[in-house]
């Protein structure tokens, strides 16, 4: 009996993880980026790269989304909005920070109007470096998130990958 219920839990968990890996709805938040990263994200969604074949879709509402894609350093104005957007997303939720600015502040480091990097404000799951990162790099970052999900060890702070590790 106990065995049976364990098996059921395992099967249900597997189905749930499969569904999560294959259907990623993202919401895009610009927390003060120079728009370079945003244009690359839009390029990722165009027919040339077509991420819908992996089940990735851009959603308008944070309530529908699984992944928050943040670009740019966090400005003092955007900080509260970023936190609010993050809190509006239903669990389980993940955060991808795109671009050097969102990882470290980048060229805006030390600006009077910036709070700092994204992980100073909300927990980040995957970092995608580059100024701006190419669409291939963004897709690679999402694939990293998927592998993390597969291993069941999402939501762990990890070392940012270096630019050399990313296929151009």
């Amino acid at each position: 009996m106990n065995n049976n219920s364990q098996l059921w839990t395992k099967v249900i968990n597997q189905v749930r993880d499969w569904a999560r890996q294959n259907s990623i709805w993202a919401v895009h938040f610009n927390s003060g980026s120079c728009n370079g990263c945003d244009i690359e994200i839009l390029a990722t969604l165009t027919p040339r790269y077509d991420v819908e074949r992996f089940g990735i879709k851009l959603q308008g509402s944070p309530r529908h989304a699984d992944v928050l894609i943040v670009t740019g350093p966090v400005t003092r104005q955007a900080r509260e909005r970023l936190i609010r957007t993050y809190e509006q997303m239903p669990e389980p939720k993940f955060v991808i920070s795109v671009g050097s600015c969102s990882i470290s502040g980048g060229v805006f480091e030390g600006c009077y109007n910036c709070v700092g990097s994204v992980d100073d404000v909300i927990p980040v799951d995957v970092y995608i470096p580059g100024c701006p990162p190419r669409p291939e790099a963004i897709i690679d970052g999402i694939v990293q998130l998927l592998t993390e999900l597969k291993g069941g060890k999402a939501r762990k702070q990890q070392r940012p990958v270096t630019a050399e590790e990313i296929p151009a």
Partner: protein
Amino acid sequence: MNTFTSLFTLLIFPAGLTLMLVGMFYEWIDRKLVARFQNRVGPRWFQPFADTLKLFAKEQIKPAIVNPYLFFGLPIAALAGALTAALYVPLMGLNPASNFPGDLIVTIYLLSLPTMCVGLAGWNTSGRFSLIGATRTLTQLFAYEAPFLLAMLGPALVAGSWQINTINGYAQNHWLIFTQPVGFIVALIGLMGKLELPPFDAPEAETEIVAGALTEYSGRGLAMFKISRSVELIIGLSLVSSFYLGGLNGIPSFLFKSLALLLVMSVLQVLLTRLRIDQTVGLWWRFGAILVLAQLLVMILWKGLAL
């Protein structure tokens, strides 16, 4: 035993579970076709299934100021309405699970239940985006409902019955698309309006009002609204193809006719851009309704003179 059979028809086949699966499959075909027309690869075949499962496994957030009964009840009502409408329609070319004289009217009203639920849901969550979305959803409902009903009235009139099954039988010997072309076009475009496909997607215009009436919905509620949408798609396709495209009398004819209709619908989706809400209303009342009314008048006159 009888209860058992009715429960089976209601929950498993042909309504219920099978219908939901077929609906999701059709949704995939629609998305894939649109993607191919846009020169993309498009989603994989299990995409809608994965989306739905994922939504069911997600947290459902209840906004602080909503009425909880309405918030949790509306998605269930929407899905129940769509599934009940399925009982009277020759789904997959099989005989309807139940019928009575006048079930055409009941079906059409049950089909607008999901839209009303979406409207109420938007009003209930009272975010400004949901409110605007709800207003647009209901405005659009009033715009397309009358022309769609009139377009369904045409076949009923020539078949001399209000029963979907009888009309389906009549249509098998008469391809009404040739005798009532205006009705067919209005019914097809009305179906697109019902499903809020482009160019009639102003109620959920992502670029203006986030996600329309369903902005505040997450997890299970959203999944149920999505399923009721794809069930509506199947029912609408079955209705239009059984009335205008020579009836449905088996699974092959259902597949062939409904997929042909779906192809036309996805071409239209790709070709046309979103209409403003006033343009939508104007289109329906100034052209759709008047043209169908004129056709009805001609048919009534013709029928009266012939008799």
